[in-house]
């Protein structure tokens, strides 16, 4: 295994970071938090730079980059706390289209004229043996009914990929925003806005049926798409943690008490060493997961669950210590620290917490209780 990024990948990271440092400084994030601005201008710039086409095949107008490259860009979104539809569109909507073998909307997405998201979770659960949202056959069409929770960009995405339960298994459908009732949820981190989505006797047919319920390949295709979404969320979360760690480290070097930098006290040194280790541990597992997806390796299911679990474990430690070690200043609204703190926490909550993914791992490792 060669676990170093290529020159091209390192360049991509440097470029993405430079773009976001210029286009998404903390003032942009603060404006979103305080309701005085949104991510529209940022999105416009990212579209101009062809970011929406990053992971879309070249024949559909994209750049055709792989999962490792997507992970690199998503990390930068997490680092910058970027309020953009890119995360939901490229890591939640497109993967399900691709796994279903559909080319629907890819051209428009690559051009930046259309955004999408994934409506999968119900009552905050992403992995459910049987969905409550139903897909009932009606002639050649399907009729969807149910409530989806925690839909990222649920009120703003143009299209939603909906997963629903048919009599013979699970299926996936593409529906336009206008056909659903999306209710925004007031969330702690407005850069990752979520909504509850109501599907009320919604008829779907033709090319909007991505995977028919009863199609034996459907469940696996959905699972594989979700692996990309989960890995991306892990990458975003770890990158937020890395930034938190860097800021906290700088603060520990500068802030003086008792006539010396607080970072010279061994109690803090050991905590910072442990934070560094937690970030590197989670980052390396996230990259490994991205790599198993990029190469479609057999270990991908386990690697993805480990990545999301480690990302959750990482934020648990880093969020606590970043806030604690900043002392009172980090507790104030006017300091920018809380944007990252909240983004990291939300990143653990969405697409399955650390504990949820450890439970998946228990099954993958053959440790689950016999039925």
């Amino acid at each position, binding site marked *: *295994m*060669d*676990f*170093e*990024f*290529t020159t091209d*990948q390192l360049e991509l990271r440097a470029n993405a970071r430079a773009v976001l440092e210029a286009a998404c400084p903390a003032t942009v994030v603060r404006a979103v938090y305080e309701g005085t601005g949104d991510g529209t201008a940022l999105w416009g710039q990212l579209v101009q730079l062809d970011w929406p086409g990053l992971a879309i095949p070249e024949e559909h107008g994209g750049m055709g980059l792989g999962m*490792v490259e997507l992970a690199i860009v998503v990390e930068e979104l997490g680092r910058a706390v970027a309020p953009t539809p890119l995360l939901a569109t490229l890591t939640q909507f497109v993967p399900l289209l691709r796994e279903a073998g559909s080319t629907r909307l890819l051209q428009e997405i690559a051009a930046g004229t259309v955004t999408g998201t994934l409506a999968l979770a119900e009552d905050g659960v992403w992995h459910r043996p049987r969905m409550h949202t139903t897909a009932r056959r009606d002639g050649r069409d399907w009729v969807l009914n149910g409530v989806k929770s925690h839909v990222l960009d649920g009120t703003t995405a143009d299209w939603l990929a909906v997963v629903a339960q048919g009599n013979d298994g699970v299926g996936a459908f593409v529906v336009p925003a206008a056909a659903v009732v999306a209710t925004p949820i007031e969330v702690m981190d407005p850069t990752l806005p979520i909504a509850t989505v109501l599907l009320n006797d919604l008829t779907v047919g033709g090319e909007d049926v991505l995977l028919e319920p009863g199609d034996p390949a459907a469940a696996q295709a959905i699972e594989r798409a979700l692996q990309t979404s989960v890995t991306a969320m892990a990458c975003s979360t770890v990158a937020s943690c890395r930034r938190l760690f860097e800021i906290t*480290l700088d603060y*520990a*070097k500068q802030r003086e008490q008792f006539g*010396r*930098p607080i*970072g*010279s006290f*061994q109690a*803090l*040194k*050991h905590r*910072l*060493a*442990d934070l*560094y*280790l937690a970030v*590197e*541990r*989670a980052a*390396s*597992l996230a*990259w*490994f997961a991205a*790599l*198993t997806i*990029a*190469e479609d*390796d057999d270990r991908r299911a*386990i*690697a993805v669950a*480990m990545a999301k*679990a*480690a990302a959750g*474990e990482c934020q648990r430690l880093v969020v606590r210590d970043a806030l604690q070690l900043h002392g009172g200043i980090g507790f104030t609204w006017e300091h920018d620290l809380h944007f990252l703190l909240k983004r990291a926490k939300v990143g653990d909550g969405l697409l399955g917490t650390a*504990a949820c993914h*450890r439970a998946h*791992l*228990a099954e993958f*490792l*053959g*440790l*689950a*209780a016999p039925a």
Partner: protein
Amino acid sequence: MKLRFDDDVEAFRAELLAWLAINRPSAAEMAAEPSVSTGHAPAWARRWTRTMFDAGWLVPGWPPERGGRNAGPIESLVYIEELAKARVPRTTNVQGLGIVAPSIIDYGTDAQIRHYAMPILRGEATACLGMSEPNAGSDLAALTTRAVLEGDQWVINGQKVWTSGANYADFCFLFCRTDPHAPKHQGISIIIVPMDTPGVTVRPLPEIIHPDQPDLNEVFLTDVTVPAHHLVGELNNGWAMANGSLAHERAMVWVNAVMGLEESLATLLVEAPALLDRLTPIERTLAVDQIVQVAIDTQAARCLGYRGFAKFARGAGAPEQALMKLYASEARQRVALVAAEIQGADAVVAGGVANDGHHAVDEPQGTWLEQYFHSFANTISAGASEIQRNIIAERILGLPRK
């Protein structure tokens, strides 16, 4: 980034595996005469070292005359992985082959290489590393064992402790104070001392696990005299050499730690179903979460190791390597503890084997609880975990010393 190695690396692996299949010592042979100390090389181990040396498989990264084949760092990594997978120790004299011989080759004279390094490589001699002292543990540079040049002889007086393998080794790579007036890091030299020199007394220190097979020793040096030409490298340059030769090892030593961790986890996963079946549903849930966490730790150790190694192989700085000693040794401790706790009352049963033959004796072996206690050797020695955290904080993260 890619999961697979290049074809030439795979060809190297195939050649090694084919050679191992024919030439490796058998499990029965190793179990019949296990090594009882890191200074002890049983007859099979001596033959095995010689066989590897002759075939250029002892230190693949070195030239043929030193028992290698000029292999690159990636091949060397594959080599260590495959030996561990095949359950064949690379050596029973870990410090001799890993630190002492390379240091003599790097810093010693031709005569020293001929008389001391080459016999280690040919399986004819073993060496121990005389570093720690009663008052110089984590603060190694505080060592006080004194060497004074009188005429053409060094006269050495002092005491070493925690000297692995000293009870069987042929010679000691001894760190001595040669200039008591210089700052503590600058007055240290390295002198080769044959263990049968008059005035050298070894007192084994039975350990908390398997006291019948001590590996650690006290070494007392009373008016020990060795010829002046036993000085290795420059006078008073011992500290710099120590860092140089230990750095050698750091690039690769994590592989064995990670593979030990993987082996522990694999064993635990095999034993888990029977252990878990005895538990109530809630106990089981708690236990399973612990196992899953050490499974994540294990994969993370592998990934962190590869991450640091990928940078090292490109000649770049690899801060991840400094993390590996700390992370892998603590993870190994957690696996043993988790396994012992899931065993419950049965964990207290003693009587695991001291050495199964195919591990070096300094690796945790025996029952889970024995392994747990044994694992502290790795979180205490070679820079305790607390020292590792200081090193990470100061040297990698740039936090002020004071």
